[in-house]
């Protein structure tokens, strides 16, 4: 049996690509190393949700230690890697904050002389963004002056008293702010609307957050997509003529099985995809599959993140509503020649955590003390700490990379992944500027004891750039259609292909790119898109 397309990975990019290809009538299988999730077991169904959040549902695989996780050595990285290895991928634990890249993000070299231009533009992706917003049930307010026209959203997530107080700070400074675009349903009762639980980043038992296990995948499965779980893909098989032939899968039984397909699509995030390419060596491709440029694994970008925090003089509603979806500012998104760095960042206002987080953070800051005052201290501090994250655009640097350590073998029988990542000078200067501005907002919004710190180590969510898209095979891994320069029929449809990182959360753009690449796959290998199945008329 041969599939038309095998997609490896069921996260943001893989699910979107698999959905589109299935809807185009192809025979598609999506291979996932983990399992389906059980929303009844998500942390916020119990009072001990904060314990589970910090252990079994930690975004850090070395803490979570699920059977489906693989070892990632970050001892040579300034930032730890966050991911999730199960159906839905990282969207299971993402916050749902869902901004698009800006048009300028696709041409940073032309505009600012840094990074590299993409071979595609915002306009190329716009119809895919629009479809993705519908499938991912994006809520938000149309009309943000920091973006080209966008419309068709569900009602925005409420920002609460907390959001209004911080927004007032932005207004006093005359700075841009806007309610978050969120991959969270605020629709009709039948569509599981958001209940404002708070910790979206531990999985959403309500099903309001649009992780791909509740959006793209069920719909695609109704159209014939096969989702194969507990299947670790250990190698992409390439013919001596340079054509993708299929994949080798390590099944939960320990058996290795070859599965044939006309096209293979990798979507395992920028670490997993690079890992698989580098491990897919052959006599013809001794550096790994699709790696004649030597760039597979290089140019890793992680969005350095910092926080400014402060205290309100009383408890407010900052524990209500999606933790990562309140308001954001793109006041400092673009290059300003007066500054000592190029490009810019998002100021992302975050809501607060639970009682345990208050207690532990309070102990660290000597606001909460062991002993007879402990409970009173925690009560006094809870719901008072507001924070703004600074999400910095990370420029591509070849020294920041994913490597394999052939001397160590992980649970999959593959070489252990090593991440080598250091903050560049531009990122450091940008971080410093961002933390200063975030502090200003909090002070103007009347918060006290304002402090800032960054980069935060536990923040490597946005994993981008290890198989760059470009027109020149010497300086990129995939072409403008997402197909590797070296291997016919081998595509990549995740954040690996991003030439630059932007200064926003990437999930929306990863999915738009994946849908775009799915159309490229269809046109290059299977047929012609017509008015009947063109993306514009599809959803």
């Amino acid at each position, binding site marked *: 049996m041969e599939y038309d397309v095998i997609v490896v990975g069921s996260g943001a990019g893989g699910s979107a690509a698999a959905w589109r290809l299935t809807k185009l009538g192809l025979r598609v299988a999506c291979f996932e190393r983990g399992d389906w999730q059980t929303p009844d077991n998500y942390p*916020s*169904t*119990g*009072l*001990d*949700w*904060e*314990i589970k959040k*910090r252990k079994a549902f930690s975004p850090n695989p070395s803490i979570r230690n699920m059977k489906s996780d693989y070892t990632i050595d970050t001892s040579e990285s300034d930032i730890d890697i966050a991911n999730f290895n199960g159906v839905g991928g990282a969207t299971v634990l993402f916050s749902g904050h869902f901004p698009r890249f*800006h*048009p*300028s993000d696709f*041409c940073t070299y*032309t*505009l600012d002389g840094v990074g590299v231009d993409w071979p595609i*533009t*915002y*306009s190329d992706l*716009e119809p895919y963004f629009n479809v993705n917003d519908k499938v991912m049930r994006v809520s938000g*307010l149309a009309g943000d*002056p*920091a*973006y*080209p026209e966008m419309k068709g959203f569900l009602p*925005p997530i*409420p*920002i609460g008293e907390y959001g*209004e107080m911080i927004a*007032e700070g932005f*207004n006093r400074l*005359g700075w*841009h*702010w*806007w*309610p978050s675009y969120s991959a969270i349903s605020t629709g009709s009762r039948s569509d599981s609307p958001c*209940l*404002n*639980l*708070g*910790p979206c980043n531990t999985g959403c038992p*309500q099903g309001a957050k649009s992780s791909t296990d509740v959006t793209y995948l069920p719909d695609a499965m109704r159209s014939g997509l096969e989702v194969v779980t507990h299947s670790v893909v250990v190698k992409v098989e390439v013919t001596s003529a340079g054509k993708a032939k299929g994949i080798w899968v390590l099944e939960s039984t320990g058996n290795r099985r070859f599965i044939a397909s006309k096209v293979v699509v990798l979507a395992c995030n920028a670490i997993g995809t690079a890992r698989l390419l580098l491990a897919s060596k052959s006599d013809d491709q001794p550096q790994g599959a699709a790696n004649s440029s030597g760039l597979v694994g290089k140019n890793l970008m992680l969005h350095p993140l910092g926080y400014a925090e402060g205290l309100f003089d009383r408890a407010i509603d900052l*524990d*209500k*509503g999606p933790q990562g979806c309140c308001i954001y500012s*793109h006041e400092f998104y*673009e290059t300003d020649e007066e500054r000592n760095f190029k490009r810019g960042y998002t100021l992302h206002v975050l809501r607060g955590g639970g*009682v*345990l987080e208050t*207690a532990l953070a309070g*102990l660290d800051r000597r606001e909460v*003390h*062991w*002993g*007879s005052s*402990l*409970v*009173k201290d*925690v*009560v006094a501090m*809870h719901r008072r700490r507001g924070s703004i994250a600074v999400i910095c655009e990370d420029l591509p640097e070849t020294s920041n990379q994913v490597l394999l350590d052939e001397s160590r073998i992980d649970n999959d029988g593959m070489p252990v992944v090593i991440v080598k990542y250091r903050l560049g000078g531009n990122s450091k200067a940008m971080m410093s500027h961002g933390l200063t501005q975030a502090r200003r907002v909090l002070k103007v919004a009347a918060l006290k004891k304002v402090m800032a710190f960054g980069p935060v180590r536990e923040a490597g969510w946005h994993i981008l750039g290890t198989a760059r898209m470009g027109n020149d095979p010497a300086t990129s891994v995939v072409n403008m259609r997402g197909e590797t320069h070296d291997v016919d029929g081998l595509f990549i449809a995740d954040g690996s292909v991003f030439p630059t990182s932007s200064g926003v959360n990437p999930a929306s753009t990863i999915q738009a790119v994946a849908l775009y690449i799915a159309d490229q796959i269809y046109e290059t290998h299977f047929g012609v898109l017509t008015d009947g199945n063109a993306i514009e008329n599809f959803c």
Partner: protein
Amino acid sequence: MQLKIFVDSLIPGDEALGAPKFSAVAWPLLQESRDLIAHVSVVIKEFRNSATGCVISESNESIESNEAMAKSFSSFFKEKHNVLYVEFREIVMGLYFSSPAVLVAMGEEEMPLFPRGQSLPTFNTDMLESVYSRGEIWRRVNGG
């Protein structure tokens, strides 16, 4: 049961709020962390042999003096065995502040977040007037 005294001294509850001490709500749960208990017990012995710790008495101490001693122990623990201290702190705090009796005493809900849910008022877009009035700020580029 030295450990129990120490933990109760660190987390004695709050009589005024009606919050119970640690052992009343979470001691059996802590027993599940056997490795942690074994390691912490070693640290306690180490502390008892230190200059500060040698004055510890297992009994006949008022809660206040136990609390002072427990704080002294926690400083010793944090300084000498930081990784274990962080794990210990995380576990005892997590167990305590997940207890329904403690949460209710603190004025928190006894029911889990789901399916209870929480309400927020609808967003007032009038606040965006100054943002709108500034006009477009996105950077136009050639070719979209």
